[in-house]
C-alpha cells in the first residue's frame, strides 16, 4: 500500500481553488495584498539541509548509529519525523479503541498467516491453477535476479520501453529500478512519496510513507531540480499539483504497468492492492500490459480472510479505517495481458529458521516503525537496508548477516513493536534472538567479545568482583566496564555520570545487618 500524503482530496482540486491556503497571504476586500506581503514577509533562514542515510560500503557492516547521529543533529528533520510518526501511532490507537474485538482480530490474523505459511506450497499451487484459469500468466522467480530477468523478458516480448509502477517493497529488495535502468527501460514511480524518492535518487525510508523523512523544503528542492518548480515555493498543494502535471503524461504514454500486491487469494486466483492515491489502478489499467511482482508470503487461503486483514492494515498503518482504494485484480482486460511473478528471494530459507520464520507474517503496515522510539529519532535511511525499523532488524540479517550485523543492536528492546503488530510477530524477542545468532556466527566485533568474556569472568567470581568494586568510588571506575562494555566515554558524552554514594549497599549491609550472617 502507499500513502505519502493524507490530504489526497485537496490534491484533486484545481490549483486556483487553493489560492487561499497560503498561510502568509494577506487578504483585503477579497484581494491578496502582494505589496504588503513584499514588505512584511519575514526573512527566512536557508532551510535545514536534509541529512542523508547510512554510508554503504560494500559488504561492510552498516553503522546505523553514525547515520542516526547525523539525523538527530538535523533538529528540524528529527522533530518533524518523530512527531509525524508519533501522530500516526496515536491515530492507530484511536482506531484500535473503536474496535472492541481488536485483540481478537490480531489473533485471527496471526493464525491465518501462520496456517498459510505452514501450508505455503499447497496454497501457492492452488493460486497458480486458479490464476491461470482466470487468464493470468504466472511466473516463478527464485531470487531477485530471476525476478528482474523475467520482468525484462515480458517487457521485451511486448517491445515495451517504459514502465509505470506503484509502490512495492519487493522491487526495492530486487534492485529493480537499477536493473531496468541498465537495460534501457524507463521506470516511473506513480506513488507520490516513492516518486519523490526516485527523483532524489534515494531509497524509501519507510514501507508506507517513503519520503516521511523529508521536509517540504527538501521536496521543493528535489522538484525544482527535476521538474522545474519554483525552488522558493514550498506549498504542498503547489508541489503535489506540479508532480501530477509532470507525471500524468508519462502514465498515459507508458507501455506497461507494474504493481505489487498486499494480498493474494488462493481460492479465487486473484490479488489485492491497497493504496491511497489510486496510483496502482492507473499503473494497472492505463497500459494494456500489467505485471504484478508478489512475494510468496503474501498469500492467504480464502477471500473471507481478507476481511480480517484489511480491517487491520490501514488502521495499523495510518490510523485510517481503510485505504482509499482496495483493488481486486481478477484477470486481464479485453485485449490486455496480466502477468504475476511470484518471488521467493530468501523467503523459503527464512521459513526454515525456527526462531525467525514468523517474520514472514508481516503485512508491511509500518506500525512497528511508527511506534519505534529509535526509528522515529534515526530516520529510516540510517539502517542502510531495504527494510528499516523493527521489522528491518529481524529481516535484513537474513539477506546479509555481515552487512546488517549491527542492526539488531539498534534497539532498546522496549517491545512496543510487538504490541502494535497486527499479526502478532514477536519482533523484540526476535531482535534479542538475532543478537545471540550474530554473536555465535562471529559477526560481532572482537573487542566487544573480549569485554563480555571478561565481564562474565568477573561477575561469576564474588571475591574478585568485590575487590573490583571495594568502595563506591572504585566501583564507579570499574562497574561500567562490565555493565556497559566500552566504559564511561560513551555514557558521559551526552549525559552526566552517576554520583558516587558514600558506601555500597554491600558495605551498608555489613555495617547494619552484619550480625545476621
Amino acid at each position: 500500500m502507499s500513502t505519502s500524503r493524507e490530504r489526497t482530496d485537496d490534491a484533486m482540486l484545481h490549483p486556483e481553488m487553493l489560492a487561499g491556503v497560503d498561510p502568509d497571504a494577506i487578504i483585503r476586500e477579497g484581494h491578496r495584498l502582494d505589496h504588503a506581503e513584499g514588505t512584511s514577509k519575514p526573512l527566512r533562514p536557508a532551510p535545514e539541509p536534509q541529512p542523508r542515510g547510512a554510508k554503504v560500503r560494500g559488504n561492510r557492516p552498516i553503522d546505523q548509529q553514525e547515520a542516526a547521529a547525523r539525523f538527530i543533529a538535523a533538529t528540524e528533520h528529527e522533530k518533524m519525523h518523530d512527531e509525524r510518526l508519533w501522530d500516526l501511532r496515536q491515530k492507530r490507537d484511536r482506531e484500535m479503541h473503536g474496535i472492541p474485538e481488536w485483540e481478537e482480530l490480531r489473533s485471527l490474523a496471526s493464525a491465518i498467516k501462520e496456517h498459510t505459511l505452514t501450508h505455503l506450497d499447497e496454497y501457492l499451487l492452488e493460486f497458480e491453477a486458479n490464476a491461470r484459469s482466470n487468464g493470468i500468466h504466472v511466473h516463478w522467480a527464485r531470487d531477485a535476479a530471476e525476478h528482474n530477468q523475467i520482468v525484462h523478458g515480458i517487457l521485451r516480448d511486448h517491445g515495451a520501453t517504459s514502465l509505470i509502477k506503484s509502490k512495492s517493497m519487493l522491487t526495492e529488495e530486487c534492485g529493480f529500478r537499477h536493473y531496468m535502468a541498465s537495460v534501457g527501460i524507463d521506470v516511473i514511480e506513480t506513488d507520490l512519496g516513492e516518486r519523490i524518492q526516485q527523483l532524489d535518487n534515494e531509497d524509501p525510508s519507510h514501507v508506507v510513507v517513503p519520503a516521511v523523512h523529508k521536509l517540504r523544503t527538501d521536496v521543493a528542492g528535489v522538484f525544482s531540480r527535476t521538474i522545474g518548480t519554483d525552488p522558493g515555493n514550498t506549498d504542498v498543494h503547489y508541489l503535489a499539483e506540479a508532480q501530477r502535471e509532470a507525471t500524468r503524461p508519462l502514465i498515459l504514454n507508458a507501455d506497461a504497468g507494474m504493481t505489487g500486491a498486499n494480498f493474494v487469494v488462493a481460492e479465487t486466483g486473484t490479488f489485492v492492492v491497497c493504496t491511497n492515491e489510486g496510483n496502482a489502478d492507473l499503473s494497472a489499467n492505463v497500459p494494456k500490459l500489467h505485471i504484478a511482482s508478489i512475494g510468496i508470503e503474501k498469500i492467504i487461503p480464502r477471500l473471507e480472510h481478507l476481511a480480517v486483514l484489511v480491517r487491520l492494515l490501514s488502521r495499523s498503518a495510518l490510523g485510517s479505517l481503510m485505504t482509499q482504494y482496495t483493488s481486486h485484480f481478477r484477470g486481464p482486460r479485453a485485449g490486455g495481458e496480466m502477468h504475476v511473478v511470484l518471488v521467493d528471494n530468501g523467503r523459503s530459507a527464512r521459513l526454515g529458521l525456527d526462531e525467525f520464520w514468523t517474520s514472514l507474517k508481516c503485512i508491511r503496515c509500518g506500525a512497528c516503525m511508527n511506534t519505534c522510539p529509535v526509528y522515529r529519532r534515526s530516520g529510516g535511511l540510517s539502517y542502510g537496508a531495504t527494510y528499516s525499523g523493527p521489522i528491518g532488524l529481524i529481516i535484513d540479517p537474513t539477506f546479509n548477516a555481515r552487512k546488517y550485523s549491527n542492526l539488531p543492536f539498534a534497539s532498546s528492546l522496549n517491545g512496543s513493536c510487538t504490541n502494535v503488530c497486527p499479526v502478532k510477530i514477536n519482533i523484540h524477542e526476535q531482535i534479542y534472538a538475532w543478537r545471540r545468532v550474530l554473536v555465535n556466527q562471529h559477526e560481532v566485533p572482537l573487542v566487544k567479545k573480549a569485554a563480555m568474556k571478561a565481564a562474565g569472568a568477573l561477575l561469576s567470581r564474588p571475591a574478585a568482583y568485590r575487590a573490583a568494586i571495594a568502595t563506591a568510588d572504585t566501583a564507579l571506575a570499574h562497574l561500567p566496564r562490565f555493565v556497559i562494555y566500552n566504559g564511561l566515554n560513551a555514557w558521559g558524552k551526552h549525559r552526566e555520570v552517576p554520583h558516587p554514594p558514600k558506601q555500597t549497599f554491600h558495605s551498608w549491609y555489613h555495617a547494619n545487618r552484619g550480625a545476621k550472617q
Partner: protein
Amino acid sequence: MRIGLFIPCFIDAVFPEVGVATLELLERFGHEVVYPRDQTCCGQPMANAGFNAECADTEALFVRNFSGFDYVVSPSGSCVHHVRDNFDAIEQTDEVKEVRARTFELVEFLHDIQKVDAFPWARFPHRVGLHNSCGTLRRLKHARPSELHEPFFSKPIDLLSKVDGIEFVRPARPDECCGFGGTFSVFEEVVSTKMGYDKVSDHAQAGAEYIVSADSSCLMHQRGCAERIGVPLKFIHIAQILNGASA
C-alpha cells in the same frame, strides 16, 4: 517468609539507598530478609548483548546464592525479567527452574503476593510522573501498555495511590521508552540520550517534580540526561516512597 534479597550490581554501587529501602520495607511486613553476600549480577548485561555463553557462570552463581528461599525479591524489573524469562545459559535443572519461578520484582511481590492494602508510614506530598520501565511494563506486565486494547490496570499506581499526599501527572507519551536499554545506552549513545532528553522533558512539561520508577537503571540514565540539559527534576525509586521517604 524467608526472602532472598537480590540487589543488582548498579544498585549496590550507585543507589545503595534503594537497596536499604527495599530491605526495610520487606522487614516492615515481618519477613526474614537475607542478603546473600556472594551475589554479583544476574547475567543480563552479557545476555542482552547476545553473549549468552558468557553468562553461564554468572547464572550458576546466582542459583547457588538464591536457592532455597521462599521468594527472591529485587527492586529491579529488568534483572527480574532476565532471571524469569531469559535465564537459559545453564542447564535447566529443577533447582534452576525453582529459583527462576520464585524470583519477583518488588512491586509484583507487594501487589500480587503480599497484597498490601496500606502503607501507613508513607507520605509523599509531591507531583510525580510514573516511569514504567519497558521490562516491567511489557515483560513483567506491571500495567496495561498503551498499545493494547485491554482494560486499564497498573500495579505501581495501585501501590502508590495508598501513599498519603501523592499526586500523579500524566506525560504526553506515558510509556515511551526512555532510551536506557542496557548496552544500547552506549552502543547507540546519541539515540539513547535523545530519547532520554525527550522523556525527562515530557515529564517536566506535565508538571512532575519527581520521576518515580521500579527500575533504577532507567532513572540513572534519565538523571544523567536531565542534569545535562538542565531539566530540574528529581528521581526516586518506588521502594523509597513506599518505605516512607518524604523527599
